[in-house]
């Protein structure tokens, strides 16, 4: 809530003006998953749930989730926005993530 100024309540009222404001939202540059030429693929058995991939992902497309209820947490990647930068694969201490080319995945 806006607090007081000059001893009186500050009034915040945009009316119908066009303000140069943009709310935070996913996809401000579109579906950036289309940028990548390779994608990180997880070998879940190797994963030790260290969270390092989550910590370093520049696009915050990794969520740590248990594979099954009560199971160990592994990275789940949002491929709609993953740019395929490879940081996660490089930081993973046990090489649980590897970069696979999109072409290969498409079976080209």
């Amino acid at each position, binding site marked *: 809530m806006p607090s007081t100024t000059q001893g009186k309540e500050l009034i915040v009222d945009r009316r119908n003006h066009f303000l140069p404001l*943009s709310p935070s939202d996913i996809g*401000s540059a579109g579906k950036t998953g289309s940028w990548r030429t390779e994608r990180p693929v997880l070998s879940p058995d190797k994963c030790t749930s260290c*969270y390092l991939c989550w910590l*370093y992902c*520049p*696009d*915050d497309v990794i969520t740590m989730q248990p594979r099954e209820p009560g199971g160990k947490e592994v990275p789940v990647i949002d491929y709609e926005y993953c740019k395929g930068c490879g940081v996660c694969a490089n930081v993973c201490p046990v090489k649980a993530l590897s970069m696979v080319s999109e072409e290969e995945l498409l079976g080209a």
Partner: protein
Amino acid sequence: MALNIKTLPKKKYVMPGHAACPGCPETMGFRHLGMALGDKVVTVIPAGCSAVIQGLWPKQGWGLPALNIVFAAGAATASGLARALERRGVEAHVVVWAGDGGTADIGLQSLSGAAERGENIIYICVDNEAYMNTGIQRSSLTPHGAWTTTTHRGNPGTKKPMPQIVAAHRVPYIATTSVGYPWDFIAKLRKAAEIRGFKYIHLHAPCPVGWRFDSGLTEKVAKLAVETGAWILYEYENGRLKLNPPSNRLLDPSKRKPLEEYIKLQGRFRDISPRTLEMLKKDIDRNWEEIRATLRAQGDL
């Protein structure tokens, strides 16, 4: 008080689908800023990569309030905003998130003014060592010998010692950090937030596009910068210098990895001559010598 990675906030402080290049260190750092200080942060962002990473209206790619401002005015705008919010009793961390251009070059004057006045803000310089947003032109924070689009034969200049320039303003807290050491960065942010006055944090941010390395290696290059001694992690608390791990173990040059391990990963140093490389090593050694001299004068060596 150890930081447990799993207790760090999971909230998105960077919105997937933003406009940054793959592997961008600024976005890594911004996430860590959010994890460190949370929802009370308001960022003031002068022109630079971080202005454009926000993407296009009607969306923005940062998960924190972002006040874009003209290039030279980061610190001045943040000063006014911080004072206004405090007057209104609104609790906030006003953070300037500026690049090396907006800090050491065009932004230096307003930074100096804010530091001298002791404004209660956290000033973060996200240093990717060139004017990256306009296409990799050299800045005063570009290291000696680096290729940029305005120093095709290698930068004749040397890296301006920004933390020491700010230290000369006698502010309560200065720290150097790196995107390769998020714990260190987060801890220093939290420490800074507890202090009243002007706090300066210099974040080393290796840029895959501008430095010419594979986008997956950002964290590795950042770590190598520190491990080879090219980037030094330290703090000035009320004028007293302290080296932080792992730099505190690297005062002895023989303990550092050879600089070549850091250089060889970066295309911007591909054509560096042996002589220029020697000059670069001398610059780096000089930084360490000055640190050594300060520690000695403090009675810590």
